[in-house]
């Protein structure tokens, strides 16, 4: 059997290894979650489809409706023209990671850069898009 000192040394060593693993996981898990978020809910595909649906469905409101849509974290360029809504997911303000497009059944138009909060407002004058 091991002596007391030997057991304590082993225990401290195991605790050190576990602490190292916990710190490693703490560093990596947020990065991985961020990566998966970007691939899913923050992706330009997802945002383009969500935005196109919201812009189109705003036209179904008989009166005034105001919608605020904010995807988490990432920033985008948004361009709406001739019934096509295009979103660019940005790596940095000047670098585009991915571009996606979706159709809208609405005569709204607008162009915005480096934004992640979108405003859709519909009243008797039509639909207007804002962002910041």
């Amino acid at each position, binding site marked *: 059997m091991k002596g007391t000192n030997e057991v304590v040394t082993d225990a401290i060593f195991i605790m050190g290894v576990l602490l190292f693993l916990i710190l490693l996981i703490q560093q990596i898990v947020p990065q991985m979650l961020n990566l998966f978020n970007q691939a899913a809910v923050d992706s330009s595909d997802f945002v383009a489809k969500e935005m196109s649906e919201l812009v189109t469905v705003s036209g179904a409101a*008989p009166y005034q409706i105001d919608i605020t849509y904010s995807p988490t974290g990432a920033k985008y360029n948004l361009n709406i023209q001739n019934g096509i809504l295009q979103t660019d997911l940005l790596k940095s303000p000047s670098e585009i990671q991915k571009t996606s497009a979706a*159709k809208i059944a609405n005569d709204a138009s607008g162009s915005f850069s480096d934004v992640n909060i979108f405003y859709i407002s519909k009243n008797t004058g039509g639909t207007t898009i804002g962002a910041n």
Partner: protein
Amino acid sequence: MARIRLLNIKIGIKGLQLAWPTFFGAIISLIVVVILFYLAVGRFFSIDTEVVEATIDRHAYTFANVLLSSDSLVYNDGNTLLRGKLDKSKLDLIQTNSKQLFSKIGYPASTTEVTVVDLESNNKWSFGGDGPQSSAPVDPLKETYQVTFPVVIRYPNDDVHAATFTLKLTENLLK
């Protein structure tokens, strides 16, 4: 009992002693794999997502809802647009000229056909049109989806009849 307990302790300690190299090997391998994966994902790969959905179905339902609130079809009592209550006069008007409506609010690269049937008098209105031309590349294959909503039609003499509103959307989806 004492022998068994002693045996267990012995095996446990012996097993632990034997497992140390394996344990450290596993830990180091895990760390190496995690770091390599992290570096690989960060530098050489990008995780991508593809949203698979019934786009044509969604477009048809949304567009029908937009039309059922449209001032071009729906009865307006002077202050209020009554969603789902179609105006007979507006139906007559839109039947003669519907292209302008759909070229303004239709989905690009799509064709819409609407049929409204009065279930009491059997009156029928059919109209439709093409959406705006798309500047984006669209799939050459067409998809069609049809939805039907229950509505009412308001006649000029204030009669209100039950009716169906059927929208058939044919669309070239974006690639």
